[in-house]
């Protein structure tokens, strides 16, 4: 048995607590009076932070070879570009929307 066995839970406990803390911050923000667009952006950013932590530490991407990490970047850029297009379109639609009867 490797000497590291059994310590992994202790090693990743800080990441676990940070993930829980980020989620509780999200819950707190969600009951505040933010505009929908602002709230969505804030929650997305916090979710991205959580996902980043999960990817790097729980999925051990930080320990993998750099090529694997670099392969994910084009995919991320593609997704962000697509997201940018859709978000701007939805904001435009907000202004074009006919008044509610």
């Amino acid at each position: 048995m490797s000497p590291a066995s059994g310590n992994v839970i202790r090693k990743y406990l800080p990441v676990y607590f940070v993930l829980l803390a980020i989620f509780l911050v999200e819950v707190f923000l969600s009951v505040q009076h933010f505009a929908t667009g602002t709230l969505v952006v804030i929650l997305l950013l916090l979710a991205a932070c959580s996902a980043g932590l999960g990817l790097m530490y729980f999925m051990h991407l930080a320990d993998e070879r750099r090529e694997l990490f670099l392969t994910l970047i084009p995919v991320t850029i593609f997704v962000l570009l697509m997201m940018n297009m859709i978000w701007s379109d939805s904001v435009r639609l907000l202004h074009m929307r006919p008044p509610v009867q």
Partner: protein
Amino acid sequence: MSESDLAMHGHGALMEESPYAIPSRKLTMWLFIISDAVTFGALLFAYGFIRVSAANWVRPFEGASLINVIIMTFVLITSSLTMLGAVDAAKAGDQSKAIRFLYSTMTLGALFASLHIREWAELFGRNITLSSSLFGQTFFTITGLHLLHVISGVLALFVIARGYSRSKLTASHVETMGLYWHFVDLVWMFVVSLVYLTNIAVAH
């Protein structure tokens, strides 16, 4: 390479090294995760588009639902921690400990799924269904896909745990399963933020 070299080093010497220096099983799981992330990404972007642009949107979640979602998230993040324990124990060759952690992860996954189904039942009771509104359509589609991943994961964990306990599967299988489980956890971070937390009924 001469025949004597082949005899000495085997055919392995002719094989190219994996570009990421990881086993093919693990690489396949990473490719699956990337494609699945794009699927969830597309659904969540479509949801975001509809959520921001829709004039009248149902905000059905109140106190009890919020507590339920906090418990669900706590359970899922904790299951990631137990999965880390399973992978670590399997890599270290501690079979019984790995199996204990695998079953703990499975139990937490099943608990998450049952809490999720309870949430659905509560919404059905309030006539919020897949066909009732835009909220219902997007909510049940996205959370349904995620729930499908969790249930599949629980079943896969059971298969892996049984195979590993009978020494038919190896630590590499447990590690690959771990990647999938963490991914399910990771997707939940986005689902809970966008689909639940933006739909809490806030008193004005």
